[in-house]
């Protein structure tokens, strides 16, 4: 649908010449470096020998030190002012929102937002929602108690700013949420992909068809969304399903437009570098995998410069038919943290999810276990089927899925069938990959 200037949240920005994006980003980077040196103890020390005015090109940018989650933890633990420590970029009295990371891999990082920084995040999310077609006509149901986790708060405030009607769905169980969706005739959802699938499963158990609930669009957050899972969600719900990528520390930095052929980097709000995985020193080209390093350029309460997200993405082609001129990624491949060597083969759990969701609709839930037995790595896929399967069907299924996983991962999987309802359902981040070879504690 042609909406003229209303096709984009900000037509000036979103169709700007790419070279101008870069000019703006480098200018705002220099401004941020100076601000961070002046206001954050962490950067005062870390950047003491860096003159922002000398950061004029990509070469100078690459020389700036990277920061990762562990640096943030160390800058906070036992440091004042509590609990943000040396990362804080504004007086504590200006902090209006407390957020934190999920802590799935270690001690959480506490993220302070001033009112100004929060509104900057909300503005970024307005772009995301508008790109995904959220409009004034939408009644958006968010089936979570958001607690201290940032994504759904951002979604809530941005949907409100865009002009949608927001219905918060916390403090209800899944069936209560389904009833509420029906009662208010919600037209849009924001949820994790896992919960989108679980919600649909419960709708079916209630004797209903998710497609009849009237959901037109769904924005997913909190987990990777491989194309096969996105397609399955679209099919089950009869809705457009959109992905975005981001994190608590940097905010959401890329999102999908109506073309749904990859994700647009949110320029010039972020300076995003996609760097080769070996040296983190070379920007990768279209089609290549790289690790994402992000600098959010407008948040002063928690200045972050060259944050290594450890997200592994594939760089896309920058010619989206939607007309936006920002850099693109074609897909999110997982996290560098999740990359494992199993029997000498580099493995990422997202590959399994892609195979399962694309090719085996009879799978309701799954879980991947890696163990070391007699000095050998063993990998097992535990599968919960949609419906009970007879012994012959199980045999055929196990043969097929083993073969497909072998082809995609170069690993031989053991398959273990689990009774219906035997695997956990997750509301927020799912934990389908369990590496029991070592107890990791690095986030």
């Amino acid at each position, binding site marked *: 649908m042609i909406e003229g200037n209303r096709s984009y949240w*900000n037509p*000036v*920005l979103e169709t700007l010449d790419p070279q*101008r994006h870069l000019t703006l980003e480098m200018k705002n980077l220099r401004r941020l470096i100076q601000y961070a040196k002046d206001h954050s103890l962490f950067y005062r020390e870390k950047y003491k020998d860096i003159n922002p005015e000398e950061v004029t090109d990509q070469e100078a940018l690459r020389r700036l030190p990277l920061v990762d989650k562990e640096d943030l933890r160390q800058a906070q633990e036992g440091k004042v002012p509590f609990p943000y420590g040396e990362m804080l970029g504004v007086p504590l009295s200006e902090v209006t929102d407390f957020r934190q990371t999920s802590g799935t891999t270690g001690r959480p990082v506490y993220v302070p937002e001033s009112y100004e920084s929060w*509104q*900057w995040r*909300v*503005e970024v999310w307005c772009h995301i929602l508008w790109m995904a077609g959220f409009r004034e006509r939408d009644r958006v149901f968010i089936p979570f108690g958001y607690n201290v986790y940032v994504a759904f708060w951002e979604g809530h405030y941005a949907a409100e700013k865009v002009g949608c009607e927001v219905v918060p769905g916390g403090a209800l169980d899944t069936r209560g949420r389904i009833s509420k969706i029906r009662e208010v005739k919600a037209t849009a959802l924001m949820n994790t992909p896992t919960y989108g699938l679980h919600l649909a499963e419960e709708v079916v158990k209630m004797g209903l068809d998710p497609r009849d609930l009237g959901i037109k669009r769904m924005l997913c957050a909190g987990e990777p969304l491989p194309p096969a899972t996105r397609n399955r969600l679209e099919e089950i719900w009869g809705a457009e399903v959109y992905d975005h990528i981001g994190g608590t520390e940097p905010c959401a930095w890329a999102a999908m437009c109506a073309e749904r052929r990859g994700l647009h980097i949110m320029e*010039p709000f972020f300076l995003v570098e996609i760097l080769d995985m070996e040296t983190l020193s070379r920007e990768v080209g279209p089609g290549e995998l790289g690790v994402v390093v992000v600098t959010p350029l407008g948040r002063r309460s928690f200045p972050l410069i060259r944050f290594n997200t450890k997200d592994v993405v594939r760089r896309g082609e920058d010619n989206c038919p939607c007309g936006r001129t920002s850099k693109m990624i074609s897909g999110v491949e997982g996290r560098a943290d999740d990359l494992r060597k199993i029997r000498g083969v580099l493995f990422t759990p997202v590959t399994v999810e892609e195979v399962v969701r694309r090719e085996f609709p009879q799978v309701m839930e799954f879980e991947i276990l890696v163990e070391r037995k007699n000095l050998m790595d063993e990998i097992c896929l535990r599968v919960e089927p949609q419906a009970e399967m007879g012994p012959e069907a199980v045999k055929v299924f196990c043969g097929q899925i083993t073969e497909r996983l072998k082809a995609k991962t170069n690993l031989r999987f053991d398959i273990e069938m689990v009774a219906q309802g035997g695997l956990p359902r997750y509301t927020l981040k799912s934990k389908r990959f369990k590496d029991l070879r070592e107890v990791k504690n690095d986030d």
Partner: protein
Amino acid sequence: MTKANQPISQADLLAMKDCLDQIERHCLTLNKLGGGMPVIEKNVRAIKSFVHALKFGVSDIADLER
């Protein structure tokens, strides 16, 4: 002034930036006039936060055009 559904002109971009600068100046004046009243102080803070977001989307680009 640009009509609905026509591309935003350079002149209008610059005019929007000037409006944002004026809002910031008015915020300063309002704060001074408010003499520490929370109702003024906190609402001015909110207005300035929205202006901050708009600087990324409008003023920065207008500066490039200038």
